[in-house]
Structures are given as C-alpha cells and as structure tokens.
C-alpha cells in the first residue's frame, strides 16, 4: 500500500515536470509565430503573448493529460457493469480550484495592464470628457531618459476611404499612398475616415486602431526596425475590403527627410488603385452574379503614388 502511494506521487511529479518543461518550450516558440518586431510596442506585446502561451500550454497539457490518463487507465472492463466510487465533492479541493483561476486572472490582468500602460498608444479619449487616468508612457525605452523624445516628433494625417489609404505630411504639405516613417522616433497619426469604419493595422507593429467617421483619433507608436511592411484595413469596409492595403517604409530619419524633400518636388498625380481597377474591369471569376456594389472613391491625387 505504502509503495503504491509513493509510486503514485512519483508519477504525478514526473507528469508535472514534463508538462512544465514542455509548456516553457512552447512559450519560447511563440516568438517564431509572430512577424518581425518592427515597433517598440511589439517587443512588449510579444513578451506578453509568450507568457500567456506558456501559461495556456501548462493548463491545456495539464487538463488533457489528466483526461488521457483516465481514458487509458480508468476504462471499464468488458463485463463489469458496476458503478465507480460515488465521490460527489470535496470542499477543500473546490476552494483551491476556485482560488487558482482567481489568482491567475489577477496575475494576467496586472501584467496586461502594465504592458498597455507602457505602450501609451492613445486612441479616442474624447468620448467621455475625462482626462485619461492612466499615465501614458512610451514603449521606447530611451524615451524615459530623454523626455524630448517622448513627445511625438512626427505628425502624419491618415485618411481612409473606400478603398484607399492616403497619407498627408503637414510639415511639407505633401501626400502619398505609401506610409514612410522615420525609425526610432515617436510618431503621432491623426486617423480619419471619409465614409465607413476602417481599421489601421500594421501586423509587424502589432498595432491596430479602428477609424470612425466624424471622430478624430490620435494614435502613437515608435517604429524601431527599418524595412518594408504592410498596412491593412482591419475593419470590414465593404466589397473591396481585401484590397485596402498600403506599404509602410520604415527608414532612418535622414532617408525619411530626403524622401519628403524629393516628393515635395513632384506634381500630384492619380494613384494606382486596385479597387477602382477591378470595378472598372469586367471581372474574370468563374462565378459571376452581377450584384451591384458601392463604386470605389476616385483614386487619390498624390505627390508620391507609391
């Protein structure tokens, strides 16, 4: 009897260790499931995702391995039609497993809150006329030591419409269908929609904000990794929703200034636009219904058609 008990405890212990090691490993894998970390915010969010994946894997593996153990070892013998032990409950156990989820929830909520606060992405706060009680910080670590950097240095207007993105750089009064951003600088976007709900989303930044007609929405972040990324519309916006894409170019502040200077010399011309092109063309899909659609807005006139 005694040996049996020790064996049981050993099995349990081995199981727990195996589950722990596996979930720690899975948690590390989480980073590889994500796009490159192109904004300071993405580093914080990825750590949080990895943490949640670790915890989640631990719970999932814990529950499934317990169930699988039962399925394998607690099967009824073919002709045994008797009942199992009539255990109906156990107060101590029930209290413990109410306490565990409560503690986990508090832990996860607290960590998430801290990440959110550090991101300081702004978003609409004018809906209730209250000052945001949260200290909005910058995810960019250096910003703490150099407060001047925490102030948004680059202000860009973003206009979304069915179905195109237009970026306006007020400093030089130029427009583009490509979003150019200086790296390691805090950016402030003023998001506007001309017609329906749209969503501003750059997966490599892990950042997203819906754009609501008649609402001024500010959105802040810090790109940190030069390269070419994509911006997509994340809020379903009608027939040509899927075509509402734009390139995002993160480059050194010097290159960025050069680009601005260059396009300031170009004359505005109509941009290429997939929605408008598809609308104009008779489509070549095998199934066609001829259901009418909202006509796309005229292609934007921009200095840099991308």
């Amino acid at each position, binding site marked *: 009897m005694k040996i049996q008990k020790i064996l049981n405890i050993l099995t349990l212990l081995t199981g727990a260790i195996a589950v722990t090691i596996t979930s720690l490993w899975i948690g590390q894998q989480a980073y590889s*499931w*994500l796009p490159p970390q192109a904004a300071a915010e993405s580093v914080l*969010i990825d750590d949080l*995702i990895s943490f949640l994946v670790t915890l989640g894997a631990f719970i999932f593996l814990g*529950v499934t391995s317990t*169930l699988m153990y*039962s399925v394998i070892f607690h*099967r*009824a013998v073919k002709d*045994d*039609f*008797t*009942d*199992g*032990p*009539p*255990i*109906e*409950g*156990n107060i101590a156990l*029930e209290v413990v*497993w*109410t306490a565990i*989820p409560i503690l986990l*929830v508090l832990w*996860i*909520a607290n960590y*998430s809150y801290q*990440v*959110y606060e550090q*991101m300081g992405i702004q*978003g609409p706060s004018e809906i209730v006329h*209250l000052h*945001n009680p949260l200290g909005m910080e910058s995810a960019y670590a250096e910003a703490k030591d150099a407060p001047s950097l925490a102030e948004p240095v680059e202000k860009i207007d973003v206009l979304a419409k069915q179905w195109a993105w237009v970026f306006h750089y007020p400093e030089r009064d130029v427009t583009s269908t490509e979003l150019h951003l200086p790296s390691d600088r805090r950016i402030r976007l003023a998001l506007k929609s001309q017609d*329906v*709900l749209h969503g501003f*989303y750059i*997966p*490599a930044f*892990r950042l*997203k*904000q*819906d754009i*609501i*007609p*008649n609402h001024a929405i500010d959105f802040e972040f810090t790109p940190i990794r030069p390269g070419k990324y*994509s911006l*997509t*519309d*994340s*809020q379903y916006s*009608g*027939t*040509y929703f*899927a075509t509402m894409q734009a390139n995002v170019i993160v480059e050194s502040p010097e290159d960025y200034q050069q680009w601005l200077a260059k396009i300031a010399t170009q004359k505005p011309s109509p941009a290429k636009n997939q929605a408008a092109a598809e609308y104009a063309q008779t489509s070549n899909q095998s*199934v*066609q*219904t001829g*259901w009418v659609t909202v*006509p796309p807005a005229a292609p934007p006139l921009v200095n840099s058609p991308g």
Partner: protein
Amino acid sequence: MTNVPIEGMLLPNEKPNHESPGNWKEYFSFSTDHKVIGIQYLVTSFFFFLVGGIFAMVMRGELMTPDSDLVDRTVYNGMFTMHGTIMLFLWTFPSLVGFANYLVPLMIGARDMAFPRLNAVAFWMVPVVGIIMMGSFFVPGGPAQAGWWSYPPVSLQNPTGNLINGQVLWLLAVAISGVSSIMGAVNFVTTIVKMRAPGMGFFKMPLFVWAVFSAQIIQLFGLPALTAGAVMLLLDLTVGTAFFDPAKGGNPVMFEHYFWFYSHPAVYVIILPIFGIFSEIFPVYSRKPLFGYKVVAVSSILIAVVSGIVWVHHMYVSGTPGWLRLIFMLTTMFVSVPTGIKVFAWVATIWGGKLRLNTPMLFALGALIMFVFAGITGIMLSSVPVDVHVNNTYFVVGHFHYVLYGTVTMGLYAAIYHWFPKMTGRMYSESWGKIHFWLAFIGTNLNFLPMHPLGLQGMLRRVASYAPEYQFWNIIASLGGFLLGMSTLPFIFNMVISWMQGEKAPNNPWRAIGLEWLVSSPPPVENFEEIPIIISEPYGYGKSEPLTANLSE
C-alpha cells in the same frame, strides 16, 4: 438502482411502448407536444447547418489561393455574412432550443411546456426566418454583405436603391428570430420555475435544466437590446433616420454597443446548454456522480450574470478609451472563474470512473478538450494588448470556431447520439458513430488550428484575397474544412438508416439516472402516466438510492 447488464437487453420490469412513435406526418403539423416540437427544431436546424456548411465550403474553396479567383468579391462577402448568420441564428440557437424543448419537461417531471401553443408558434417562426434569409439571394443586389455584425455605415450602403434589398430582409429575419427566442425564453423560464414535479427542489434539478434556465434568463435581458438596435438600423436604412449614419450626424459606435450588449451574452446562451449536456453525459459514461454538483449549478447563474458586463471586449480597438478597455479586460477574464470550476468538476467526475467510450462519450470528451483550448485563446483575447494585435484576424476566427464547432457542434452531436434511442425508440450504429467522431475531430483541428498562426502573422478575417505568404496554412485549413463537410455524411446515413430500421431501443440503454430514462422510448404523449415524486438528488451513480418514490426504476 440495479446494476444489471443492459446494452441491448430489456430490463425485467420494463413496460412495452404503449404509444407508437406517432405518424411521421405529425412532424409536419402544428403539434403542441414538446417532444414533436423538439425534434422539429432539431431537424430544421440541421438542414440549415448543411446550407451554412455549403457556404463555408465555397469560402474555403476561394481561400485555397491568394487571389480572388473562384467567386466574385460580392459573392464571397454574401457567403461569409450568410454563413455566420445561419450558423448562429438557424443552427446553434434552434438546435439547442430543440434539445431543451425535448428534455426539460421530461427531466423535471412535467407533462409539457407551460405554454404549448406559444411553443409551437415560436418553432414555426424558424422556417419563416430561414425562408426570408434564403429569399434574399433572389432580390436585386443579392443577400446582405455586411457581415453578421452588420455594422453601419457599411450595412446602410444600398447600391441598388431598392427598398427590398438583402440587408432589409436580413434585419427582418433577425428581428423575427429575436421574437421567437423571446417567446421561447418566457416559456422555458415559466416551465422550470412552475412545473417541476413534487420534491424537485432547485438543487435536485439536473444540470442541463440549470443550464437552460441560466441561458434563457440571458435571452430575457439581452434580446431587447439587439432588437432595439436592429429596428433603429432598419429605420436608418428604410426611412432615413440618423441613429447610426455618420453622414447625417449619427454614431456607428452606438450600434456596436447595442449589438454586443446582446451578442456577447448570446455566446453563453449557446454554450451553457452544452455545459449542461456535458454534465449529463460524463456521469453516465464514467459511472460516477457529478463532482461538485452544487457549485456547478450555481456557476451557470454566475456565468449568466458576469456575461452581461463584458461586451466591450469586442470593441477594444473601436472608439473605446483606455480606462474602459481595462475595466472590461478584468470583467472578461473573470468569466473564466466559473467556467474553470466547471471544467475541473468534469475532469474530477471522469477521474477514477469506469469509463465506456461510446459515441456520445467520445464526442463529449473531444468537445471538452477543444473547449479548454478555446478558453485559453479566449483569455489571450481578453488581454487588451494581445487583442490590439489579433482583433479581427484569423486568430479570433480560430478561437470562436473552437467554441462553436469544437465545443458546441461536437457537444450537440454527443447529445444527439445519447438521446437518439430515447427520441426514436431505436439504437444507432456504434461503428458509424465512431467513424463520424474521428472524421469530425480530425477535420475540426485541421480546419481551425491553422487559423491561429495565420492570425498571429496578421491575416485578416473577411478577406476574399490575401498575401501569398499565408497560403500554406490556408490550404491545410481548407482541406480540414472539406473533411468536416464529408464527416456529416456518415452521420446523416447513420441517423436515417437507424431511425428507419435500427435495433429497438430499451427504455434505458445507458443505465442512466434521470426521469427521462424512466419512461418508454420514445416517451408517450404527456410523458408520465403518474407524475413522479422526487426523493433524491440526480447523478446517484454508485449509490443504491431510488430517484423517485412512485415510478419504478
């Protein structure tokens, strides 16, 4: 409780079926028998499940390649709109109401629902909803294309200029379905409060009844909000009011609040009865009492209450200020406490039992495992910074399909197999059932697991075309989807053949404890010749106490 071997064998004290299962024509008539209505709901909703499934196949076909090349973008948009709407309003809601209709009066020892005519009226509104939905394919401009959320202003854009258009029909159908659900909710709550057999206190009710009770209370407080939102949208669309139209100074975010104030709790209207089904099935096939019965019962009510204050988690990145995001993050996460209690209770029930892996048990176990997975991704979504990244991506689609296919649909299958002998008086084929289970289980995971990496990489939901780097996982998902479509074939085959010529079922083929197993299979009209008097708690496996004082067991 006598422990005689049962599978396929008649108990000595069993009465023969004293009523025939009824003429098949009865199922096409305005019957007021709750059992006929229950089966009417189940068969009708299964038909729509197949229709919604065909739309899903078209979508998965389109998503095999990055380009939009199989169907027009308008068709794709109509497909995902109708797929979502049908699966929720014409499959999960009505099929669960069907089960509740069939089982609740039997389980509480009543002869019928409190308002049998209202019950029949509520059912017959479902085919009407379906006809209006399907009819929208034939109006100029085609069906609604604004997604099952129908967010304005997209849902207010009507390029055909006709008054009868897909979106108007959609709103009409949803409103009628709401009215039908309210009728059902009033009926269920009244029946459960007023019509329990003598001796059946609240803490002697089976957990399925607790779950239905909690779910239907949500309907009562939530549906008025959805209906109000739908009517206001309809007015905006038809007579040009300006509740939500920003071009006229309206506020589209208000619609999101109306919509989610109901539609978040609605997911609990769907999942709670499935939790109830789990609580009925695990004890039978583990041959143990349900662990922590009282806590599990109360946690259903707690889920219903907390679910009323979490809706903003669908709108973190809409017009929601930071402080509000964080409040709703905390309330959302707290739903996992009563849910976690239930999961622990089921695991403890199974632990150390004497398991029999019949088809219903396989489906219930598979569904439980996939629910745990869905709960974990749910917690990730409730965390504001994570949601900022994955909101409106395939990660969300993966999450809610693990809930709605992995848990709800698989749980429904478990229930159909488990109560099939009771409903039809015939046994189903166990080997076809197992084939069905494995196809469905593998198909579900192949279909919906790849959606999580896709979402993490940033692939958006509701797109007809996508960047080429997402193709690999999309092909896997599509193959899984086609497998899922095929998995319904052995099921349909099994059900039809077994219903027509399956082995005759005894009253209690699973040796289950519960009032519904004391009556003949199928049960007679009016259920009980003599109303039972309840003397013990449900789930008395392993304890040799009788359930009732007057009916033989």
